[in-house]
């Protein structure tokens, strides 16, 4: 099979919630290795877009192709297994579990070992890998602490680390810096981008913070009322006063 550089393609993706147009004929293409930022005001359909791609929502119309395969209508679990992972605006963690255990679970799931009920979770090789992952995300100090004891920035990083541990080809991040203090957010993004670049993971991240998108995105999509109103290099797109108005106007 020929490896296509196209990793994600959506065609006319449409989803309405009653009167609200959460997605309106979205057609987007993302290539292997890209780092794409998505901006837009609250309620412009950014998160809905991620929910559609990962199967949490089913589109009313349109198609989704991941690595050349039609995944429209598949559940999140199946899409995850195809190599698409995501993180969440509000970190989705196992609150009664330790940090290391959480990562081990992602690794076990990735290795297809998640359903085993006889092999222990704490295999030596897996444990080493989990510790290495935590180290890359700067969370080593918390490895043996319950996830509930993590500070907010740490929660965000762990949430992304859990997705990253699935070794995805495409990673979708929903507002990686929301809830992170202004002083910390560039540090968090530096850590993230470094890890992702090292592993050559194609990444789409949703942000309401234009500064972050401008600094880290290679390419930016601007959402408004469920539509993509601009697509291009951050420096060009975000300079557009119309774009600035729609993104900032209603915040």
């Amino acid at each position, binding site marked *: 099979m020929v490896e296509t550089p196209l990793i994600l393609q959506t065609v006319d993706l449409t989803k309405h919630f009653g009167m609200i147009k959460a997605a309106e004929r979205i057609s987007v293409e993302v290539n292997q290795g890209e780092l794409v930022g998505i901006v837009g005001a609250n309620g412009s359909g950014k*998160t809905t877009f991620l*929910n559609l791609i990962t199967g*949490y929502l089913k589109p009313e119309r349109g198609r989704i192709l991941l690595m050349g395969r039609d995944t429209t209508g598949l559940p999140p679990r199946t899409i995850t297994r195809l190599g698409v992972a995501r993180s*969440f*605006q*509000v970190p*989705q963690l196992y609150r009664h579990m330790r940090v290391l255990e959480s990562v081990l679970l992602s690794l076990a799931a990735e290795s297809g070992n998640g359903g085993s009920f006889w092999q222990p979770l704490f295999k030596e090789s897996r444990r080493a890998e989990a510790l290495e992952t935590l180290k890359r995300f700067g969370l080593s100090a918390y490895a043996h602490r319950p996830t509930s004891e993590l500070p907010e920035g740490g929660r965000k990083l762990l949430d992304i680390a859990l997705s990253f541990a699935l070794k995805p080809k495409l990673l979708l991040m929903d507002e990686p810096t929301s809830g992170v203090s202004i002083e910390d957010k560039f540090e968090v993004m530096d850590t993230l981008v470094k890890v992702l670049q090292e592993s050559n993971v194609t990444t789409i991240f949703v942000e309401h913070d234009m500064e972050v998108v401008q600094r880290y995105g290679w390419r930016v999509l601007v959402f408004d009322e469920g539509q993509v109103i601009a697509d291009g290099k951050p420096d060009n797109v975000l300079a557009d006063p119309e774009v600035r108005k729609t993104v900032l106007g209603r915040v």
Partner: protein
Amino acid sequence: MDIGLLTIIIFDGLNYAAVLFLIAVGLTFVYGVLRILNISHGAIYGLGAYMATWLTILLLNKGLPPYLSYFVLLTGAIIIGLITGPSIERLCLRRIYGSDIHIQLLLTFSILLILDDAMKLIWGVEPMFMSEPYFLLGQFSVGGIIYPRYTFLLIGVSASFGVFLVWLVRGTRFGKLVVSVIQDREISVAMGINVGLIYTAAFTMGALSAAIGGAFIAPTISVAPGFAAEVVVMSFAVVAIGGLGNLEGAALGSLIVGLARALAIHLVAELELAVIYLIMVLVLAFRPQGLFGAVEERRI
């Protein structure tokens, strides 16, 4: 099936449905407001029956005119409702709102166990009989089969209580407050609604439903320890079939269960009990939220 038998089945079914509804409507109301499935509901039903029986026997022996016994039944039920409702809600439930579901179920289960024995300690373990209110109303005939008029009273009390609750929720200020608390607790608190008081009041309404159910069924049965256990599970079935937290659902659920049971007794007696739970499983398998229930989705 001939018309005579059908009439009998419908009457038996209605009779049974009336009792079930009276109990189930309180259960579903409490769930609707507090989001707690109150297992101790059955014990309140039992307490209502005991209190009403004891009080009626006591007053009849003191020379109370028998036609006043209906008011005594109601009084007994109200006493129990007003004692158990606020005390269970304030002393126990208040501490576990928002806890895991199993904590809530087990807490009310433990209250059931405690109250079940409390009845034995208060009123003894031998059965009590009191049938004056049942005999007093006389009887009527349907399709050649004689029924006690008391059946009408049961259906009447049951329907009135249902209508009263619907009016309370849809037609009064209290109802508006209840609905706003159901929809968003935080906002209601912010708006200055005394949510604690609403919860107490709602739980007390639920307790009253159970106590009235017990009080008015008491003259037709022998009131003895343990008689409440089975009725409770059946009212769970009723509530689940109709949709948790839904008043109309409880009405429809009671009718379905009541008629199904009557049908089974007359046609396939072996299935008398199983049919109720079979219906419950069937309904839940296709509509997990029950016939009238709404689906709740989680946002991420």
